[in-house]
């Protein structure tokens, strides 16, 4: 405490300058996308029109459930490749029950979620009880599910959906489509779960160091299983909402959002260096979907637009890497 105060002052200002640089470098991704969007908006002002923004929010919301689920599996240190097919099962089963059997809408939805939960549990058990690497285990599930799904449905799609169900995807409230509210709701739930509850905390810590958390008394098997179950539970919701908003359920419904959901969850994981993954994933979803939308506005062909999520993902990872490099060049070894 005998340090001269002028010295401390000097150091403080130095640090403040550092802090700004640090912030800019760390969040270069945001800065980069901000400029990209500005450029697009100047070239095509319609990009920022309320109707278009609403559209971005809608497409984002359809992807969001699967993406949040996936990011929770990433947080525990695993991966779930089968989520698009879980989504397909959920959507097909629920619409089948509603249309062919005539059950009420809520039964269809509960059934859709349940089958997802079941598959998620199966994935989780393979990883925690049979010690199969989650990449391989869920790839296996993916193949099995896919085969079964075609066999069960004959590759058919369901076209006419019950009104009540369609309302969930196409209805509006205060001029905003219903799925956007659902996204807001599930974001808050997942956020609170990951940041404010014991299980959420433990999921992140298991992902950080499995041995240290085991020695701290965390039930690592239960926690790992839980995160696969959550992913299984959330994925069908994406499938069902997609079906409801498109008024059709097809076998390959999950394939449509596989890549964007994956990219968004990956981005969410790296964007804040593995912290706050749910918020990161929300940003990821919006980045991916708005760029996709921009590509649409710019008249890029649909085939090429499929490349967009990949670009967003690579850009994020590249920026993250360069941020690290830049920081170490600044010799700030903190990040």
């Amino acid at each position: 405490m005998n340090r001269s105060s002028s010295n401390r002052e000097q150091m403080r200002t130095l640090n403040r300058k550092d802090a700004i640089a640090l912030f800019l470098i760390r969040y270069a991704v945001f800065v980069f996308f901000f400029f990209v969007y500005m450029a697009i908006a100047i070239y095509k002002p319609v990009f920022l029109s309320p109707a278009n923004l609403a559209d971005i929010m809608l497409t984002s919301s359809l992807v969001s459930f699967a993406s949040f689920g996936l990011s929770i599996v990433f947080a525990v240190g695993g991966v779930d490749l089968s989520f698009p097919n879980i989504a397909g099962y959920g959507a097909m089963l629920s619409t089948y029950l509603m249309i062919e059997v005539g059950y009420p809408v809520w039964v269809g939805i509960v059934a859709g979620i349940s089958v997802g939960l079941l598959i998620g549990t199966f994935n989780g058990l393979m990883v925690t009880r049979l010690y199969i690497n989650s990449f391989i285990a869920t790839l296996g599930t993916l193949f099995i599910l896919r085969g079964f799904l075609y066999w069960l449905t004959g590759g058919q799609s369901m076209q006419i959906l019950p009104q009540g169900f369609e309302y969930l995807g196409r209805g509006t409230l205060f001029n905003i489509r219903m799925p956007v509210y659902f996204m807001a709701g599930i974001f808050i739930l997942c956020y609170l779960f990951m940041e404010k509850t014991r299980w959420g905390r433990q999921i992140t810590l298991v992902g950080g160091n499995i041995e240290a958390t085991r020695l701290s008394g965390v039930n690592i098997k239960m926690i790992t299983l839980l995160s696969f179950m959550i992913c299984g539970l959330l994925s069908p919701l994406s499938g069902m909402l997609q079906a409801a908003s498109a008024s059709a359920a097809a076998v390959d419904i999950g394939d449509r959002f596989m890549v964007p959901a994956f990219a968004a969850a990956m981005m969410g994981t790296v964007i804040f260096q593995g912290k706050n993954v749910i918020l990161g994933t929300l940003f990821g979803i919006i980045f991916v979907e708005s760029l996709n939308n921009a590509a649409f506005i710019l008249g890029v062909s649909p085939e090429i637009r499929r490349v967009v999520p990949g670009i967003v993902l690579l850009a994020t990872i590249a920026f993250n890497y360069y941020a690290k490099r830049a920081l170490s060049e600044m010799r700030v070894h903190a990040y």
Partner: protein
Amino acid sequence: MGTARNGDEDVVIKASLISKYFPGVIALDNVDFEVRKGETHALVGENGAGKSTLMKILYREYSEDAGSLYIDGKNAKGMGIRQVRNLGLSLIHQDLNLVPVFTVAHNVCMGLEPVNKLGFIDWKELKQKAAPYLKEISSDIDLDAKVEELSNSQQQLVTVARALVAHPRFLILDEPTARLDQKSTEALFDFLDRCKEKGITIIYISHRLEEIYRLCDRITVLRDGEKVLTAPVQELAQTELVKHMVGRELKQQIPKGEASIGEVVFSVRNLNPMAKAKDISFDLHSGEILGIVGSIGAGKSEVARAIFGADRKQSGVIRMQGEELKIRDPRDAIDAGIALVPEERRKQGLVTTESIRKNMTLPSLGKNFCAGGFWIKQRKEKEAVAKSIKDFRLATPSPEQEARLLSGGTQQKVVIGKWLLSDSKIYIFDEPTKGIDVGGKHDIYKMIVDLAKNGAGVIFISNELDEVLALCDRTLIMFNGRLVKEVINKDTTKNELLFYVMGGKDNGSKSG
């Protein structure tokens, strides 16, 4: 300005007015540091004082934010690690940065692997190349063994061997003895003596002051990022040195009042861990601090881990207050009220990418910091962590600092702190004071004594006989996986402990 000038011709490392900032931390503040040719220079200071940071600056792993640096008369400012290594500077890091799945030989020659004509690593030559360096420091490490199969002590020796590959003229050792057992420490000291004879300049960091008096010529003390003084070791009495380090008077005595030892609360019968140790039986009383000593490889950690359920055990009965415990994994042990402060802080103790706060409350999150076992009580959590940070005098800008950014000793304090928040009945400490500064050790002894005073049973495993002697009530000695002797501490001496630790046998007359 700057170059090694007249008068101090023999100054080979000259760092002037070095400052280094991390976000929120002044790690070094205008530090002057000079090392003379051929001397052994000690660098001491509390945890987080900036010792490792200064050494990493010399080694050009970090570059300073201000100041100048001359090594061997050359301006080192623009240099990288490779160039200073070429100047003959080698650094043995505080953290073992070995590749666990690679062989010893490969780790020793890391980055300098000889290749054959096809560009593949030439394993035979690699081994030949590594052998002489390893022999300098140890004769009983197998070059073909994987590093992960070695004991902590042996791993540390491998890092020494690796530093030798660069044929250093300047050798920096950052807390090399924290992981070493008695025998390896002696081996290291012999080796350092040989280095001195060869005229190698040594910078030596340690929290064990007796080592510094044994080895070093001059000493530099850092406190809170500032240089306090540089002086010849012999001119500085130990008490004075401690005062310079911690900036306050420190009682050298372990604050151990009259212990009130109660009933047997915890007993272990015929415990057979999967490896190393055999047939372990002992009792622990409430309010008692029970030491376990033995050289590395004696099986102390294995016993602790088997009790705690960290490893499976072959057989054995563990009772708490007479009731048999079924412990299959650490969760069972913790539920029963047992805590284990593990041996390796970075692998077993911490999630290094997470904050101090999240690490500290992990074991007791459900029990103490959640409403209904589910919702985290943020306020309570923050208060508890803030208090621990104060009690332990943690060198950190905030409770949200990631554990990997803390100094080594500070990390160790976090690991201890996390278990002290767990309100357990039995505490097992496995080498808890490794890497902790003088003042911090004192604080931790006091906390352990307080635990015992409040009725907990404490098992204290350590390689430092002095601290076991002073802190514990009773001590068990292990040799080659067996409990060979039990002594009451007030009736014993360090020599007696040492005798049994080294494998000495009773001849019937000694025990009472």
